[in-house]
């Protein structure tokens, strides 16, 4: 059974049909009655295109005939049937483990997702309602994440928090924090702590860009340096080394800034002052004199800064990832994603030949000369720009697996690039498909959809995807990474830009928006470094 790639008209002859078929059958030879057409129909709905199916007898049986029956067949038993089971949609369950931390004129609420999202395939939106002791509402915020900072509250006031989850199918019962919390100002006021963090982030950015050549210079330029000098001194060698490594490759960071939002300052259970904020860091990576504009490198992270006091002066001594530090596991194991993907046992990357790009002694991609010819123009039916746009726009889409990199890449190729699915056994490298049941609450995907090594095998063996050089990489290409101590490729990312010196990547796993050089640099000098990088160009017809 073949997917038709081009529209078909009644005036066309049977011989022309062969030219309109996808290069590989959608489904293996099997009795028609056993074919499950749900995945291909689903792909037509999702990709908003579908030219139909063609059925071809296996080569050995071309002399025989095939018959099908329409809805008008005289024998009613032969007529095709459509059976529909209706499942009533349900609202999500209540959020779990609501915890509330008071601060200066605000509070932080964190919780865990409901065990049951009801009929929704997507994560719920949350509504946080803050009430005073008399039951009156003091604030209401919504959040797509299982946490929220609520500001604008009065100090010295007791507040309670209730959280509900909402999807298109309804709203959950409210979950409440165990006790009321009382907001309180911090010694010396929040502004002082905010200023220390701001100066610390500026000093760090200055070391990375070269605005400050040394940590001594960075500290001298900061009036509140005494409050963060130890933390900055500890980080300075790494920042300077990073700047120098980039400089060796003709790259420099410029215009580095850090902005704080959703700031909450408070006192933790140990009596230490903390500042929690969303930190938006931006920088431009310029690669040589011929790159006047550079590439934007940006990231947003919720950080928690903790202060100690030394004779009264606040000392910033710890910076931590806020959601990780605030996570409380639900007692049920259901917070962990189900076991859904496992690669075939005994795989080795060398089983299927690869053509990795060349890496230099520093572990970075070798600079190629401009005389390298572009890759041969291929009759690509996968839209590279579509893949890249989808990946950029949907970088925040929900993770469906603990290791979601290849699932993200496959969704970008499928929804954005319009790459056609391939039927086949779930574990077979020939297949590439996904199915959702019951409003997305149950998912089923081929191993090649979500496992990096399976995906690489599928693209290399069954789609003949060529490897391209770094210089010739373009938006929509897929970068695969193999670490030294691991037997197979274990990470995939989408190329969304190539300025000739570096590739802009979008990925699920690690920093969402990054570059090829930055991804490699993170593991440089490590025992388990990135030893091979391959860039594949998806296509669906050769």
């Amino acid at each position, binding site marked *: 059974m073949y997917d038709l790639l081009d529209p078909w008209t009644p005036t066309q002859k049977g011989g022309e049909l062969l030219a309109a078929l996808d290069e590989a059958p959608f489904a293996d030879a099997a009795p028609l009655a056993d074919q499950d057409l749900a995945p291909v129909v689903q792909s037509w709905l999702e990709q908003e295109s579908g030219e139909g199916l063609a059925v071809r007898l296996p080569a050995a049986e071309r002399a025989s005939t095939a018959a099908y029956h329409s809805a008008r067949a005289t024998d009613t038993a032969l007529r095709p049937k459509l059976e529909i089971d209706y499942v009533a949609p349900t609202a999500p369950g209540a959020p779990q483990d609501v915890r509330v931390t008071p601060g200066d004129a605000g509070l932080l609420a964190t919780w865990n997702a409901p065990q049951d999202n009801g009929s929704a395939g997507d994560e719920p939106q949350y509504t946080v309602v803050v009430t005073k002791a008399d039951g009156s509402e003091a604030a209401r915020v919504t959040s797509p994440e299982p946490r929220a900072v609520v500001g604008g509250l009065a100090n010295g006031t007791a507040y309670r928090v209730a959280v509900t989850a909402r999807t298109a199918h309804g709203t959950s019962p409210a979950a409440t924090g165990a006790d009321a919390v009382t907001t309180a100002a911090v010694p010396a006021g929040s502004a002082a702590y905010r200023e220390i963090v701001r100066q610390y982030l500026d000093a760090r950015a200055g070391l990375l860009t070269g605005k400050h050549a040394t940590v001594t210079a960075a500290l001298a330029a900061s009036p509140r340096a005494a409050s963060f000098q130890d933390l900055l001194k500890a980080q300075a060698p790494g920042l300077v080394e990073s700047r120098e490594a980039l400089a060796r490759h003709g790259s420099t960071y410029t215009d580095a800034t850090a902005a704080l939002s959703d700031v909450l300052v408070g006192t933790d259970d140990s009596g230490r002052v903390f500042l929690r904020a969303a930190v938006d860091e931006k920088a431009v990576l310029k690669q040589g004199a011929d790159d006047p504009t550079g590439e934007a490198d940006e990231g947003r992270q919720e950080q928690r800064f903790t202060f100690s006091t030394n004779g009264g002066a606040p000392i910033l001594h710890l910076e931590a990832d806020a959601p990780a*530090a605030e996570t409380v596991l639900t007692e049920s194991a259901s917070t962990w994603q189900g076991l859904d993907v496992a690669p075939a046992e005994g795989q080795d990357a060398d089983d299927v030949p690869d053509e990795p790009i060349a890496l230099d002694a520093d572990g970075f991609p070798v600079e190629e000369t401009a005389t390298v010819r572009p890759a041969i123009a291929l009759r690509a039916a996968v839209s590279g720009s579509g893949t890249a746009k989808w990946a950029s726009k949907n970088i925040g889409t929900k993770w469906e697996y603990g290791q979601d990199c290849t699932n993200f890449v496959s969704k970008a190729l499928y929804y954005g690039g319009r790459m056609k699915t391939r039927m086949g056994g779930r574990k077979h490298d020939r297949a590439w498909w996904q199915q959702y049941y019951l409003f997305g609450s149950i998912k089923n995907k081929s191993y090649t959809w979500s496992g990096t090594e399976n995906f690489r095998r599928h693209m290399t063996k069954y789609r003949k995807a060529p490897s391209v050089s770094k210089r010739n990489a373009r938006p929509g290409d897929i970068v695969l990474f193999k670490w030294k101590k691991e037997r197979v490729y274990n990470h995939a990312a989408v190329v969304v830009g190539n300025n000739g010196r570096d590739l802009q990547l979008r990925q699920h796993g690690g920093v969402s928006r990054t570059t090829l050089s930055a991804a490699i640099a993170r593991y440089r000098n490590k025992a388990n470094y990135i030893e091979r990088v391959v860039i594949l160009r998806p296509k669906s017809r050769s």
Partner: protein
Amino acid sequence: MRRTLLGCALAAGALLTVTACSSDDGTSAYQTDYTGHEPLHVVGYPSTGSLGVVQEAVWRLADGDTDALADLSVEDGPAEKTARNWVESFGRAAKGEVTADFYDEGSTRQTVVLYFAKSRQTKEITARIGDDDTWGLVLNESDPKEASAGPTWAPAKPGGTGSRSAGG
């Protein structure tokens, strides 16, 4: 509100010292392990997954339980041989104070450096999430010399470089 000890430990921040949490049968194995070993001192940016598996790895090292350590392997490879090498090199020191420095971020994988106070040894390991969505370790050091070597790039003290990789 009930919660697991690991959850409390994470909520408590970097120093995993927890006394005020209740528990149930589901966490008894964890409690037994936790109370049976030195609390792990943590620096850097762990995720719940990376922290859990590194904590367990240090316990298995301290127990000298090579089979259980090898079971943490996230993929095919010389896990048993590597586990034996690690226990031989670090098992004794793992019974004392250990600090784990978690680098960069731990959404799907993380470089972690263990500092063994007793022997002043260091050891770099990779924690990562496997294809079955459970966290494990990369155990691929069948050469005893490689298995016992400390990282040349890591700072002398945990957190000495802010738990961030150069350029990362």
